[in-house]
Every structure is written in structure tokens, then in C-alpha cells.
């Protein structure tokens, strides 16, 4: 095993462990902090795939913005900070079963998909990965439509948030 593989195994296990801790902790703050670790593990995996851009975006967006919002929400809802005595309810067993079934069928389905086992073509090293990515996102032959649709959706969400938060007059 090469050192890189060792690192990969360590990071992958840490990520999975942290993710497991997120759903099993009975303290919301702990869960949120474990979520940060899990997200960070994913960022490290991106680095190991030489996807530096995705790695920093992962940190910037997920850790720097989304996780902090979650921690905010936890902090501001007082009373929920104490340990929750029991994190399962009576449907826990059924839900677990459904999750396991769903996950295994996904794995089976994907294993049959040829691209899953094939190695990706290495990116031409002569060109900057970021340039590649940028071009792909806005070129008509690339992903311009999903990109634009996503941005319109985000705009709609922004406006929606504004409407919800706006103080109502005359009340």
C-alpha cells in the first residue's frame, strides 16, 4: 500500500465515523461539530482526487456557510442544547430497514453501471483544471443549462427568504 492509500483509508474512515456520530449523538451541538468534521473529510478526499477547486468550495460553502448556519440555529433555539435523552422513536426500526434497503439497492444498481468501474480519463495536464471547469460551466456544449437553472432557483430562494422575513405593515 502506498502512503497515499493509507491516508485515503484513514480519511475515509474518519469521515464515515464522523457521519455516524452526527446521527447518533444526543447533543445537537456535538452533532453539528461532527458534521463539520465529516464535511471536512469530504474536502480532504477532493484534494486527494486533485480536485482542489471542489475542495476549497466544499470548505467555503459547506463548512463556512451551511454548517455555521446550522450551529446558529441550534444556538438560538434554547432548551434544545441539553442532551436529548432518547434520539430514537418508535419508527426507528422501520426507518433503518428502509434506509438499508435503499442504500443496498443503490449500490447494486450502480455496480451494474459500466462507468462506475471504469477509470476516468485523466485531465489533460496542459490545461488548468479551473479553466476547464469554468469553460464547462458556461459553454453551450457543457453544463450551461443546469448551471443557469440552479442560479435561477437560488435567486427564487433568495427572494422567497426576503418575502418571508419582511416585516408586515399594518399589523
Amino acid at each position: 500500500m502506498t502512503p497515499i492509500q493509507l491516508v485515503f483509508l484513514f480519511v475515509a474512515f474518519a469521515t464515515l465515523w464522523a457521519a455516524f456520530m452526527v446521527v447518533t449523538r444526543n447533543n445537537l451541538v456535538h452533532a453539528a461539530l461532527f458534521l463539520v468534521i465529516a464535511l471536512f473529510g469530504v474536502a480532504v478526499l477532493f484534494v486527494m482526487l486533485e480536485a482542489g477547486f471542489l475542495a476549497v468550495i466544499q470548505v467555503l460553502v459547506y463548512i463556512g456557510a451551511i454548517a455555521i448556519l446550522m450551529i446558529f440555529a441550534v444556538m438560538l433555539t434554547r432548551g434544545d442544547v441539553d442532551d436529548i435523552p432518547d434520539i430514537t422513536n418508535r419508527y426507528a426500526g422501520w426507518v433503518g430497514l428502509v434506509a438499508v434497503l435503499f442504500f443496498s439497492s443503490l449500490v447494486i444498481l450502480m455496480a451494474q453501471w459500466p462507468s462506475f468501474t471504469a477509470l476516468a480519463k485523466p485531465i489533460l495536464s496542459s490545461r488548468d483544471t479551473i479553466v476547464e471547469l469554468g469553460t464547462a460551466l458556461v459553454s453551450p456544449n457543457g453544463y450551461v443549462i443546469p448551471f443557469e437553472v440552479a442560479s435561477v432557483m437560488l435567486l427564487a430562494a433568495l427572494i422567497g427568504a426576503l418575502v418571508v422575513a419582511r416585516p408586515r405593515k399594518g399589523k
Partner: protein
Amino acid sequence: MQIETALLIEWVVKSTILIFALLTGFAYTTFYERRLLALIQVRIGPNRTGPFGFLQPAADGLKLIFKEELIPANAYKFVFILAPILTVIPALIIMAVVPWGGAIELFGRQIALGLTDINVAILYLLSVASISVYGIVLAGWSSDNKYAMMGGLRSSAQMLSYELSLGLAFVVPILLAGSMSLNQIIEAQRGVWFIFYQPIAALVFYIAMLAEVNRAPFDMPEAEQELTAGYHTEYSGMKFSLFFMGEYMKMIAVSAIFATLFLGGYRGPFVDTYPLLGPLYLFLKVFLSLGLMIWIRATLPRLRYDRLMAFGWKILLPLSILNVFVTAVIIVVFGL
């Protein structure tokens, strides 16, 4: 494998130098701030410890180490201890992508002065900046103190808001240099510094970075007049000094970044012939930028919190968006 080992040693040595420089820099920035503030405020400042008071930071550090560390009874202990650590780490690692000079020849190897040169350096800076808010939020929340809580909330809201303008101010040098690598941005300023092309972006960047490191007039989270000491009200001893360490190292880091993006980084006269001049020029620029920060602190009153948010969202953000837009249009139209 031989080269790998040499590379590893090079990295370790450079990281050590960088951390050491930041820690010394932190200590002497406090001293610099105290002396310069005193000079501005018709006082003398610390001048008793060592020649010209040069040992004052050491004395301060020693005192803080021996201080009793108190943890409030109702504090959330784990997070309370974690928070100062989370404050210092981003401040330490953010400098990793900032080059301190060109390449030099040493032991028959080309050694670049700078820890690493990655093609997403600017995004790296932004992401590290975005996680530095954790320390403050968690400190404010875990202290079980209303002042600390309000300080934590204020600062996180403030940092999130100003990060947008900061990010947009980052975009302008990227557009001008056509790269996100800091080395190439410095190269692009070989002729004229970007501050002359883009004074507005530089101004926006400087303001946003003051807000990002919570310096006056944006020192809302620790607004002494209202919130006693804000998020670190309950901290004492070394934990307290870690917060200060984080703040001052971030001051140095953002100054270095500002110098890199807008003031030509390590570049200066004769730097191509004598690459070792590079760190010196960078030091000089950082020194001046820190001086400006201290000057601002000595001069301006604090903005009120709601006005600060309004300023960030209603003035700074539209201004920087407009600036990016205009710059992009000019670059496209004139094909620069």
C-alpha cells in the same frame, strides 16, 4: 525518493519559519500597536521592559501564562476549550499560500520563497477566512454569558456579511491577472500595482478586511463600551491570549494578502536580482498596512451595529458588484 525527502524537509523548514514569523509577528504587533497608539494619543506607551520596551511582549506572554484560568461553572466546557483553538488555527494556516519572495538557490536546489503555490489560492484564502468565524461563535455561545452570546452573534453576522464584499473584491485582481494563483497575480503587477488600476476594489477590500478581522471601527464583537469584552468576556489566561493571538495574526495575514493583491506583493526595486529582498519588501508593506489599521483604530469611533450591517449590505456590496461588472466589461470590450 531522495528528492521527496528533500522536498519534505523543505516544507517542514518553511512551515516552521512561517509559524515562527507569525508568532513573533503577533507578539511585536501588540507592541507596535501599543507604541503607535501611545504616540498618537500624546502618551509614552510601554518603554520599561528592555531597551525601548522591546521585551514587553515577552513580559506580557509570561504574565498571561501564569494567570489563573477560569472556566465558568455553567460553561459548555468542551466547546469552551475548543473555541480559542479554532480561532488560532485558521490564522496560522491562512498564510500558507502567500508567497514571500521569488526563488532562491540554496544547497543546489531552487527554493521558492513561499509555502505553496496552488491554482485556487484565492479560494483557499476565502474558505479559511470563512471557517475562522467558528471560534468566535462557539466561544460566545459556550461561555454562558449574555454579553459573550451577543458578541458571538454580532460578529458572526458581521463576518458573514462582509465576506461577500471581500469575495467580490478578490474577483477584481483575478480578472486583471487572469489567474487565481497569488504568484501570477504578483507577476501581473510587475509594471503597475493593482491599487492604481483598481482603487475602488482596494478600498472595498481594505474595509471588508477590517471587518473580517474585527478591527476598529468594526470591532463590534468586542465592543467594549456595550458588551464589556464581547465573545471573550469569560476567558482568562492563555485561552484569552489565544484569541488575541488569532486576531493579531489575522491582522498580519490580511495585511500580507492586501499587499499581495494590490501592492505588488514581495515585488520592489532590484527584487529580481536579489530575491532575498522579497521578504523585506513584503514586511515593509505589511508593516505600513498594520500601521494604517492602528491609526484607524486610534482615530475613528465605532459604527453602530445596525448601521454597520446596513453599510455592508447597502453600500459596500452594491459598490463591489458594480466594480466587478465594470471591470469585467472593460476587460472584455478592450480585450485586455
